[in-house]
């Protein structure tokens, strides 16, 4: 066994683009957070949000601090340590009829991370964001060492800056929220194969009758087929629809090792996308779906990020505001397909109104997310996409970002000023920072 230190270790986000550094795990966040510059949950943010700044090289890993501190079966009110994973929460409580009010597309996230990224999900159009719309309280260790119970009433500025604040306002130690009662553990879902972008946008609007909606688009197809894909909508099945059928355990195979970089190329991506499209042979499908396959299709293959190889990848997720309308989305997709960033997966959905989280990502409009392998041209591609996005008045999602330039981010998100003002009050010296905040917010290294 070796001692403390870097030992040449690197630490990376889900996109596998690493920096020198390591994570120190602790079950006792209150003790361990005293000197830490940043907390990190399960490391599912794609970019550098949960990576240490260059001068520190160490982050506090929270995933062992995962106790449920209170749960009231009558009201669904839950208080837990920040490292509790959504996977564990679902494993324990889905069968018993409770579900998180908002879930992202993976359950391998911690409650603390969900607040820090103010995550949204397939139900954003009706439910908003996890932190700013549903979290009741966060227990926060702020930069001066104090530990505060922060609610929207007690410290409104700090609360809303923390929701979506990427862990930069303080270490999130505990989270309290109300879980939703669900009528059965099954999902009733409908899905539709969609031929082009106009049909897609119309169907997205039509599917808003469902609380959960998400679409996948083949963003390699151009011209007439541009924007073809599959749209999924769902709601919790009623007890009568679900019957007494218990949830089976879904197997989750793992990608055992890093794929060589050549595995993912334009050809394989195109083949995958075509296959995925035609796998949905029927125009429309209806029926019961396992919640794991509905909410977390990517979780079924553990370590799927390894298919992008050692060079890693980034996810580009942006929201195109409603004002830009159909044409804005089409302009963006045209630019994207013209630049040809081979993407296995491209996800599209409508967002509801903007939440109060100071830097919370979603706003009314259409959000598009795509994976881009990290290659020599990736920076240029992201720059180009950001130029298109800036013209539409949209913005990117910090939890996904690795390549956006500080000046571009500032133009996209004027709310940054307000966020920095809150940090000026609580952490004027910028004790709490990340690789991302150094890159994008001008924090000291």
């Amino acid at each position, binding site marked *: 066994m070796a001692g403390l230190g870097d030992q040449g270790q690197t630490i990376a986000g889900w996109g596998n683009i690493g920096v020198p550094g390591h994570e120190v*795990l602790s079950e006792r966040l209150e003790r361990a957070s005293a000197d830490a510059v940043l907390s990190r949950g399960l490391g599912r943010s794609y970019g550098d949000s949960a990576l240490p700044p260059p001068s520190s090289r160490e982050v506090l890993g929270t995933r062992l601090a995962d106790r449920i501190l209170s*749960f009231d079966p009558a009201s669904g009110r839950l208080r837990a340590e920040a490292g509790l994973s959504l996977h564990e929460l679902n494993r324990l409580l889905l069968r018993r009829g409770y579900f998180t009010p908002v879930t992202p597309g993976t359950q391998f996230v911690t409650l603390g991370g969900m607040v820090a990224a103010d995550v949204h999900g397939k139900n954003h159009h009706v439910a908003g964001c996890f932190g700013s719309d549903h979290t009741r309280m966060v227990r926060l260790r702020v930069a001066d060492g104090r530990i505060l119970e922060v609610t929207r009433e007690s410290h409104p500025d700090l609360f809303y800056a923390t929701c979506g604040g990427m862990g930069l306002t303080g270490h999130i130690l505990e989270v309290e929220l109300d879980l939703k009662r669900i009528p059965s553990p099954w999902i009733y879902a409908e899905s539709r194969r969609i031929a082009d972008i106009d049909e897609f946008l119309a169907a997205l609007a039509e599917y808003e009758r469902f609380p959960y909606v998400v679409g996948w688009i083949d963003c390699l197809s151009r011209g007439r087929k541009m924007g073809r894909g599959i749209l999924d909508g769902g709601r919790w099945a009623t007890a009568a629809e679900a019957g007494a059928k218990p949830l089976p355990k879904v197997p989750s195979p793992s990608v055992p090792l890093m794929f060589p970089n050549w595995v993912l190329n334009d050809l394989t991506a195109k083949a995958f996308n075509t296959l995925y499209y035609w796998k949905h042979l029927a125009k429309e499908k209806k029926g019961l779906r396992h919640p794991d396959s509905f909410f977390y299709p990517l979780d079924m293959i553990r370590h799927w990020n390894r298919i992008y190889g050692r060079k890693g990848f980034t996810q580009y997720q942006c929201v195109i505001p409603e004002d830009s309308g159909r044409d804005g989305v089409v302009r963006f997709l045209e630019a994207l397909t013209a630049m040809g960033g081979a993407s296995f997966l491209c996800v599209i959905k409508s967002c509801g109104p903007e939440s109060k989280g100071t830097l919370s990502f979603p706003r009314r409009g259409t959000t598009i997310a795509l994976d881009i392998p990290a290659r020599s041209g990736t920076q240029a591609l992201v720059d180009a996409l950001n130029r298109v996005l800036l013209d539409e008045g949209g913005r990117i999602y910090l939890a996904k970002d690795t390549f956006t330039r500080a000046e571009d981010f500032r133009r996209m998100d004027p709310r940054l000023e307000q966020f920095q003002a809150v940090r000026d009050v609580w952490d004027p010296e910028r004790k709490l920072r990340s690789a991302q905040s150094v890159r994008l917010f001008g924090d000291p290294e």
Partner: protein
Amino acid sequence: MRVAILGATQGMGRAIARLLAERGDQVFVLGIEPEELARTSADLQAHSPSHMPVGAALCDLADPSTFAAALDAAEADLGDVECVVVTAAIFATQDTLEEDLDRTELLLRLNFTNTVVFCEHVRRRLLQRGGGTLCVFSSVAGDRGRKPVVLYGAAKAGLSHYLEGLDHRHHEDGLRVITVKPGFVKTGMTAGLKPPPFAGEPVAVAASVVRAIDRGTPVVYAPGIWRLVMLVICALPRFIMRKVGF
């Protein structure tokens, strides 16, 4: 099953307690800090399918005078204690211990003497009720004297030895003694150390320990691969052990 666990607030003890609570076993937790015990009790209650409250009592491995009262409290709460699990112990690297004699003395006393004294309390109680299970965490470090774990390993070797003797002496009386020998497991105890190959996750280790408790398996390596690793290490000649770093 009714189980008392010393060390349930952290690491592998926590994982085992959760697994037991989740399948409906009645659990009682023993530990040093009241606040930590309360948090763990609440967590276990949430894990229990019937939302059963979980009792707790103070028990400090550094202070044997707390042992009897703690076990009394467990008996009072559970009605009858059928199984006692001991995961509590302290850890320090060989380098740290070599620089700090007080710490060395403390580690040897807690991990060997006091753990054995605690087990003796349990032995009497279990034998009195006609048998039961005593499951204690030793370590692969106790299998052979090795450079990185000279002192820690010595205490664990003594503990493993004691547990083996106990098994031989009282198996016929219905006492099931289970010696758990974890390899490197990624818990708070090993935080800051670089995980070697075959490092285990607490949840997986807990699952194999609970299986051993159910079956009465006397020795458990966790993860299982460590049985093989230690077999090889124990077979290596001394001149090699003097050269290698493990």
